[in-house]
């Protein structure tokens, strides 16, 4: 067997490291599986997209979602931290909502996953409150003056998610296909679909 050197294949190193730590009882392979699965599949904007698609096709669900976001997403088995409230704000042709956390980077992670880099940036946090239309324009979203822009400031007790407007020409699509149209940015409110 050749000598192990710094260039040893990373896949092999990972496997050896895991095997050794499992042998020593410091971690279990099941725990690693669970962490990876949580991050890879369960946590991410696809959860939010499912919620949005359901709200588009099911008016009763939409009503529940807008009244009490936390309870409505619980129907999917999703949950924000128990001590926080999830408020879902609805975009319409007349109103556009955009979410920020001016103090830090509070974010509805249970439905949207990891926040994008720019969400945490000082520039976004400071500017979207002061000049929302200009910031949205930089994201490629130009809104007519007739559309009212509402900026929602998240905090540790209150997280916001935007319910985007259902795009035109999607009447024939089922819930799953609709969900695939929904982007993270549209649920933060920096884009429209």
């Amino acid at each position, binding site marked *: 067997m050749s000598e192990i050197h710094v260039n040893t294949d990373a896949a092999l190193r990972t496997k050896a490291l895991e095997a050794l730590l499992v042998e020593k009882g*410091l971690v279990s392979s099941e725990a690693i599986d669970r962490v990876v699965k949580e*991050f890879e599949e369960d*946590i991410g904007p696809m959860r939010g997209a499912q919620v949005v698609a359901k709200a588009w096709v099911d008016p009763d669900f939409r009503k529940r979602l807008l009244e009490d976001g936390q309870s409505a997403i619980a129907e999917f088995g999703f949950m924000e931290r128990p001590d926080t409230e999830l408020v879902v704000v609805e975009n319409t042709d007349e109103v556009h909502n955009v979410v920020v956390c001016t103090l830090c980077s509070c974010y509805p992670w249970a439905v949207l*996953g990891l926040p994008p880099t720019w969400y945490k940036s000082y520039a976004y946090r400071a500017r979207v409150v002061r000049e929302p239309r200009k910031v949205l324009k930089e994201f490629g979203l130009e809104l007519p003056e007739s559309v009212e822009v509402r900026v929602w400031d998240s905090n540790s007790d209150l997280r916001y998610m935007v319910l985007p407007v259902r795009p035109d020409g999607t009447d024939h699509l089922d819930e799953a296909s609709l969900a695939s149209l929904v982007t993270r940015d549209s649920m933060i409110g920096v884009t429209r679909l």
Partner: protein
Amino acid sequence: MSEDTVSRSVTDMDESIAVPRSNGELQFDAPWQARAFGLAVALNEEGAYPWADFSGQLSEIIALGERSGEPEAYYEQWLRTIEMLAIEKGLISESELVAKMTTVAAEDDHSHDDDHHHP
């Protein structure tokens, strides 16, 4: 809720050392990267080290790589962070790790060419 604690540790990492992601989801270019990611987080959950120690060590390795002008890819650095931390904390020794790599490499060889006899 552990799920939340985990998520917050990872999402609160400084931008200079943040995990690669796309549209809010983690981006892994190879299965071992996901494994290394899970290993670091699971070790933290099991109390092997505080997350601050992990992110501190990772930050040092990334800074070193930048100074050298030839930084390793993100998850190579991530993996090196776990190796260094596990050795530094006395969870494993370097010689044990090297020995394990040899064993694992030999097992991999076995499984790849099993149509000939081994002594």
